């Protein structure tokens, strides 16, 4: 697993690994990938992936309003907010 790949997946996940830990993390990742790569040897031709252990289909609900809004509590939990909005550093588009 090269440095470039590590950098890319770190960016996709919005994570930064400390310089002093980066070598170990890369090694760890390689070991884990080796583990999960061992599945390659299993024949899965014509096998449907199993995304959920439940062999059933989704329940659909009625289009009826039921609010559980707690605006004040939601905004309170944020590190930065005012009485109406969540606030983040200004984004320039």
């Amino acid at each position, binding site marked *: 697993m090269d440095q470039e790949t590590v950098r890319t997946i770190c960016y996709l996940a919005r994570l930064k690994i400390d310089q002093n830990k980066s070598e170990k993390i890369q090694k760890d990742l390689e070991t884990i990938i080796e583990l999960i790569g061992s599945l390659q040897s299993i024949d899965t031709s014509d096998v449907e992936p199993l995304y959920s252990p439940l062999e059933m289909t989704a*329940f659909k*609900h009625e289009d009826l*309003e039921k609010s559980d809004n707690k605006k004040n509590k939601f905004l309170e939990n944020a590190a930065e907010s005012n009485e*109406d909005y969540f606030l983040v*550093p*200004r984004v*320039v588009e």
Partner: protein
Amino acid sequence: MNWETVIGLETHVQLSTKTKLFSRASTTFGASPNTNVNLIDCGLPGVLPSVNKEAFYKAIRFGMAIGAHINQTSIFDRKNYFYADLPKGYQITQMDLPIVLGGSIKILTDDSTKIINITRAHLEEDAGKSIHDEFDGFSAIDLNRAGTPLLEIVSEPEISSAKEAVAYMKAMHQLVTYLDVSDGNMAQGSLRCDANVSIRKSGDSELGTRTEIKNINSFKFIEKAINFEIKRQIKVLESGEKVTQETRLYDSAKDETRPMRSKEFANDYRYFPEPDLLPVVISNEEMQKIKDEFPELPTEKEIRYQNEYGLSSYDAQIIASSKSMADFFESSLTGVKNYSLLANWLIGEISAYLNKELIEIHESKLSSENIAMLINRIDDQTISGKIGKSIFEEMCINGSSPDQIIESKGLKQITDDDSIEKVIDEVIENNSEQVQGFKSGKEKLFGFFVGQVMKKTQGKANPQTVNKILKEKLAK
């Protein structure tokens, strides 16, 4: 050098369900910030989505109307990326198995019709809104819109000009409003358009590099944005450069497109099936019910108006082309005897008023009962057409009924011969010079006498009776 334009449009239609796609928060427009937000919409730890069936039914209705294939089993996927108005850090959308596949839309340009094929349409949740300019140094996030159901409709790249693009969007607007799938309001964002534009040398079979233009929120801007982009790409290619594949924003103030900053880094969305939602199945019974409750479409209405109500094909087409107009027409029908007169008023006076005020008929103060009453009063000669127009003006302002206005202003038409004859006699007596002039050949003076009679009767005299009696008297 002859250049050919290739355009594909991605339309996002906000479905007019009462609640959101995965939560039961309300979708009403213009609510106070962060109030139409349930726990699920906030993306709090531990919350789970649940599927709104009405969103599916609307999507299917759309699919049926365009002759598409409906996937009765469809799956939701997660599209992973980070943005401030995306609470969960992923959007629940449909990737591999969308609800609608294929289909086509007929568009009308100035001189012809063209079929544009649809690639697919799928359901996904909308993101919240970011407000960048109101708070110093901060962007503000409002999650009211987060979770609203969207139907993303992707056209094949078969549109060849900005005009065709506008025609396509107009057809889309008519379709979604007619089907009660969306209110199709571009200004409010319930109908959005992203344009993929590329150009190539005429005759080339390979597609040129395309750019995606976002943030176009009116029919007018669609035309302008696309035309700007076409010109820009031609300039780039003619100078020997290559067109960069990128996302651009349309700036309506400057009438130009420019690259969008936040889309600079290529994103790997890492789609995978949403593990919190099982496959969604629409039963045959549900499909049948949707078919049974299918609303009448414009072309069917056109035919019916001609056959059942004797409208001309021209009038029928105009009234049927707008759902709100057609609805109004149909609800006015029961009270009215003269369908053609009703149609004339709708297409004439009423449309002129609506266009001037830039509103739809259901946003005005006019009710179908009152309009029906107005038509009837004109039809049975209680008032003249001219008086009818002034009554209409007042109805527009304060929504009162014609009878109320006629009563309060005493506008009933004068129709009995005796009263009119008396007035005519007066006019003739007081205007002997003009009478002489008329009798000596100045026929145009007839209008003068009519005018004088109308003045004396505050316009209430029945014009036909006036003409008849005046002619008789002046002939003596």
